[in-house]
């Protein structure tokens, strides 16, 4: 589904991603872990098409299409979704309001019929129940005055509404208490299917108790330095990132 080859990216002339290789197949969940500032969010934003990051090398194929050639909205249409680490507050635009426009834009792109007001309401009601997001939150301006947890829940809600093929969750667990974490994880798991895939960025192992990944990758200083199965996450939790050059059970050092 997704193939990232030797991806290098700069911000303001500073090299952040230094050659990322990652392949995600349909049905898989990949987790990306790594210390603060290692480039996790940069990778997520580059995937979504943020133009403040300049891609200097490499390519990204999404279902065989050159993702870097597509605008952010086209990527959404193709089925990519990013749950932001820092969701943006947008005064004056309610979540419901903009999601209708977004869903219909995406449906149009996918060659599906646009939903009328009734069908849309039914659709979001179902999804809101899924992530247990209160209806009145959706009638407020997007993320404005939301608590950290409410913002994250809103991201997962939007994901559920837009039904992407590939979801990238950037630290969606930070700021959530354990109940909220369960709900969010449940929302993500509901979307799991053989046709869909996910990249879960986190730096706590605890989310991975609920969203069990097929693969775990460790990103340090703009490179994936270690890949393994879910046990790698447990090991990281124990030992931190200091051991990374050593051999670990279940881990395969990545050839540089």
């Amino acid at each position, binding site marked *: 589904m997704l193939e990232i080859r030797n991806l290098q990216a700069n911000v303001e002339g500073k090299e952040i991603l230094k050659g990322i290789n990652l392949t995600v197949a349909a049905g898989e969940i990949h987790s990306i872990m790594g210390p603060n500032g290692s480039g996790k969010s940069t990778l997520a934003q580059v995937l979504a*098409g943020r133009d403040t990051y300049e891609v200097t090398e490499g390519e990204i194929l999404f279902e065989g299409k050159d993702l870097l050639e597509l605008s952010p*909205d086209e990527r959404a249409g193709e089925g990519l979704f*990013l749950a932001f680490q820092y969701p*943006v507050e947008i005064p*004056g*635009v309610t979540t419901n309001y903009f999601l*209708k*426009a977004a869903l219909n834009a995406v449906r149009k792109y996918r060659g599906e019929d646009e939903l009328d007001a009734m069908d849309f309401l039914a659709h979001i009601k179902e999804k809101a129940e899924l992530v247990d997001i209160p209806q009145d939150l959706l009638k407020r301006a997007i993320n404005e005055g939301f608590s950290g947890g409410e913002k994250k829940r809103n991201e997962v809600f*939007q994901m559920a509404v837009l039904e992407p093929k590939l979801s990238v969750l950037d630290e969606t667990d930070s700021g959530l208490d354990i109940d909220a974490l369960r709900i969010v994880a449940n929302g993500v798991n509901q979307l799991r299917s053989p046709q869909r895939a996910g990249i879960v960025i986190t730096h706590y192992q605890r989310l991975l108790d609920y969203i069990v990944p097929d693969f775990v990758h460790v990103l340090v200083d703009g490179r994936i330095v270690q890949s393994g199965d879910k046990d790698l996450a447990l090991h990281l939790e124990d030992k931190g990132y200091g051991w990374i050059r050593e051999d670990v059970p279940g881990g395969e050092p990545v050839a540089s």
Partner: protein
Amino acid sequence: MIEVKEQKQTYATRFERIEAGVVEGGSASLLAIRKAAFSRFTELGFPTTKHEEWQYTNIAPIAEAEFERMETDTASGSIDDIAPFNFGACAATLVFMNGKFAPHLSAVGNLHEGIRARSLADALSSDDPLITRHLARHAKFDEHAFTALNTAMMEDGAFVYIPPGVVVEQPIHLIYLTSSAQPGSYHPRNLFVLGSSSQATLVESYAGLEGTRYFSNPVTEIVTEAGAVLDHYKIVRESDEAFHVSTLQLHQHQGSNASSTTVSMNGRLVRNDIRTLLDGDGCDCTLNGVQVIDGTQHVDNHLVVDHAKPNCNSREFFKNVLNGKSRGVFSGRIMVREDAQKTDAKQTNQSLLLSEDAQVDSKPQLEILADDVKCTHGATIGQLDEDAVFYLQSRGLDFETARSLLVYAFAREVIDEVRIDGLRNQLDELLIARLPQGQLLRERL
């Protein structure tokens, strides 16, 4: 300069006609006021950008243009011409075609007894004592050439009186539509008197058919007697070639509550002087405004809130959206006189620049002579938040639609406050029509 002199000559010739009684001029006392106003206009001349209050707004094209008095056939205009401006049931609708009252398009039928809503020309010829008492008594012309010119030249407009204690549920709507193919000028004059503890809503729509070229110079005086509640809206949707220079003067007495919203959408050059005199204890005044402009449009909102008495609150909230090479001006003067203790005045001006060539000047001025007051003002000028645009794009909205949605949200904040449902919907439509991807947005939402 030569052109200006010639122009003054044109106006002088016109004024002679008024003096000679060729044009219905009203009572002797009004004629004296007209004379004073005209002589003041002659002294002042049209302001240049050297004048502090006209620093950012160059009205030379008005001074230089050969705008003759707009001639009109009283039967001109049709119901279809007026249709786009209607927004639902009104207590009275007074339509003016090319500045002149058009009875065949107006509806003043079902008014509560004692309410007067009629054309000014009509009121002038009948010597209404309220006219003598109020007309040209509130809008000062000694420092304002355009108000002076209006006072000297006024021929028609609306006169509305609400008796004490009467509550008029539905709005009273004034529609000024220019349809004349011949360029020209006119000077609408409106007087609106709300008796004590009365309540009313007044809407002024100013518009021109496509391609019309004219100079409209309206002056509206509104008096709110003690405890009256006024809701006022002014919508500027003049033609793209039109000049609109207006004055709104509110005179508020004790405990009265006035709110006025100015929406400027179309017109080549628009200048709105919006002034309120808080002349009684415990008044409330809210002045809102939004302008959404593009191309080479120029819109200047000039506000003066004069706190003359204690315990009054004033709120000013103006938003500018500027695209293309348009230029916006906001000037807000708050005066707090010695007497006006416990004044609470707040002014906010927010501008959104959508292009590099658009420009805005925001100028707050506070003159505070009382010591126990609360006065705040804040101005922000910015571009669209790129993070927000990207966020919306990442959800599937294309770049232009994402931008349009953000602009819409920004401007909606003022329109949301409109308390007449039909008018709010009309303004919403107008706003959407002015957005780059408005049509698409409307379909999607």
